[in-house]
């Protein structure tokens, strides 16, 4: 299936269109909100919330006996919120660190949820099958109304973001300071957290409890590598998330229905790996290149400085010296000498070298942080 064919299928086929739209919107909103979670150093929060949602799904089913997505997601929302506020409570009221609280709530709720799921499985009720799809998600079950719901929440989230942008930024950077300026930090905190919970719950059907936190973190972590501006980061994270959704759906649809959720998560992770390596300012590759370049520059400077100290002792700075002198000096190699000649700092004459006017001046200014590479 080529790309054109796939595109026409996305437009014409109801299921594929719904899934593509749904995963794109989901990726966008989780990427956006994930930026906030990452910047607050609450990366684990998403994981805890999604796992905490599981017992809610099971209990909602036990009470209503219905498999209707919205009913189950309301259950997920309630137990997700309960889990979140328990975490907050544990952190503020006890000595426990937040990672401990997150881990505790995560495993407690998830364990309880699994217990309920196995209990439901043993019930003599034909309606029970399929609850375990919330573990790893099943994008194929998305219907148009689900997409509408996602779009509404995303729109609402965008509006709130635009309204409270200044407050969010201040709160994320320096919450104590925000408090002294008279902002209700508790309100901002609850607002952000509630949206994160909402986004996670919406994604459970598609990506599932276990992998949901990757949707939150991966796009944000990738986006952080490319920019030093908060607004750009949030925007990029949304784009990365949405593209992961679309690409992941495409791959899973064209490869004999691989499970969509995991594929999306893998695509998002590819974004992360790529960003960590290739980002110009923070990426590993360019950092290594800069490191090597700097070391080379330093070697040149060291050699030049050594020559400068020799030349200094003569009235004529271009007085020739034998190359052998340099052998006492560790930074010297044939290559560095040739480079200095290329730069016009040094002239060579057989086995003798001499400093040029330009080389002398550059060396004299080396200690004034006048790096050679500035030339």
């Amino acid at each position, binding site marked *: 299936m080529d790309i054109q064919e796939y595109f026409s299928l996305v437009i014409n086929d109801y299921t594929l269109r719904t899934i593509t739209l749904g995963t794109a919107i989901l990726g966008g909103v989780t990427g956006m909100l994930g930026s906030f979670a990452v*910047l607050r*150093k609450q990366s684990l929060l998403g994981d805890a919330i999604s796992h905490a949602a599981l017992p809610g799904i099971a209990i909602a089913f036990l009470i209503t006996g219905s498999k209707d997505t919205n009913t189950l997601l309301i259950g997920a929302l309630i137990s997700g919120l309960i889990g979140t506020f328990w975490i907050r409570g544990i952190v503020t009221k006890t*000595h426990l660190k937040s990672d401990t609280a997150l881990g505790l709530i995560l495993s407690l709720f998830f364990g309880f949820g699994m217990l309920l799921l196995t209990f439901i499985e043993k019930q003599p009720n034909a309606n029970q099958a399929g609850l375990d799809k919330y573990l790893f998600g099943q994008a194929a079950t998305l219907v148009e109304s689900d997409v509408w719901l996602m779009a509404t929440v995303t729109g609402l989230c965008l509006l709130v973001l635009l*309204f*409270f*942008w*200044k*407050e969010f*930024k*201040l709160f*994320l*950077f*320096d919450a*104590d*300071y*925000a*408090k*002294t*300026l*008279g*902002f209700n930090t508790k309100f901002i905190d609850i607002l952000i957290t509630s949206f994160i919970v909402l986004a996670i719950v919406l994604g459970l059907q598609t990506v599932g409890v276990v992998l949901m936190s990757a949707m939150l973190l991966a796009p944000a972590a990738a986006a*952080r590598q490319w*920019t*030093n*501006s*908060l607004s*750009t*980061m949030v925007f990029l994270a949304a784009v990365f998330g949405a593209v992961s959704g679309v690409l992941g759906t495409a791959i899973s649809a064209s490869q004999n229905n691989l499970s969509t959720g995991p594929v999306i998560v893998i695509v998002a992770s590819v974004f992360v790996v790529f960003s960590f390596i290739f980002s110009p300012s923070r990426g590993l590759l360019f950092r290594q290149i800069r490191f090597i370049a700097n070391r080379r520059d330093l070697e040149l400077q060291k050699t030049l400085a050594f020559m400068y100290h020799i030349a200094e002792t003569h009235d004529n700075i271009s007085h020739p010296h034998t190359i052998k002198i340099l052998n006492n000096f560790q930074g010297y190699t044939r290559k560095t000498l040739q480079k200095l000649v290329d730069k016009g700092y040094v002239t060579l004459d057989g086995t003798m070298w001499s400093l040029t006017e330009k080389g002398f001046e550059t060396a004299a200014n080396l200690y004034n942080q006048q790096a050679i590479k500035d030339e």
Partner: protein
Amino acid sequence: MSEIKIQEKTSVSEHKMAVQVDDLTVAYNYKPVLWDIDLEIPEGVLMAIVGPNGAGKSTLIKAILGILKPIAGSVTIYGKPYDEQRKLVAYVPQKGSVDWDFPTTALDVVMMGTYGSLGWIKRPGLKEKKASLEALEKVGMLAFKNRQISQLSGGQQQRIFLARALVQDASIYFMDEPFQGVDATTEIAIINILKELRKAGKTVIVVHHDLQTVPEYFDWVTFLNVKKIATGPVKDIFNDDNLTKTYGINYKVSIQE
């Protein structure tokens, strides 16, 4: 009326009281960090709060600013509760209290100082930007306005924090260890700005660690070690006696009766 009464009560009656702390007690769990603090800070002083590690110096500032909830006691700013006087107060937190890898620029951080007077939702405009640029210039950081904050040195980060407080255009400035980890040039730059603030009639309260510079930099000092040991003019109370009381003996305050 009540304001006048407070003035009459104070020991330094020729001064208006900028900050008044009454019976302030703060505890983390069962361990009291501040015990029954009474403190009056007259208007226009440049005051150091000194004391050993864990003496509650930062806690005192945070409790005055309402960041921490005290168990007991009250704080007034020019005779009224802090909530009503917010706009008169600016705060410079410890440099290490935030993540400097946050994706934002120096100018952006300084602009945050204008958020308080803007209130909810309203965005900073030209006026706020101009004020922020002026503050950056005052601390000698104008050239770095678009620099990502993680690419600033420790001293430069401290100056950015100072500029953010200057933009608030307050009457009272609280600063938590502004000299920590800065080089000599920055220290001189900061102290000059503090002295300028005092000259303009502002009150400046600084958590300070370097005892040797207290007489040179400050005119008022508070010794603190869980309890308030002493407070007053540097020339009167900055002596061995108070230093020994603050640093020499390990004060153990128990809340058991």
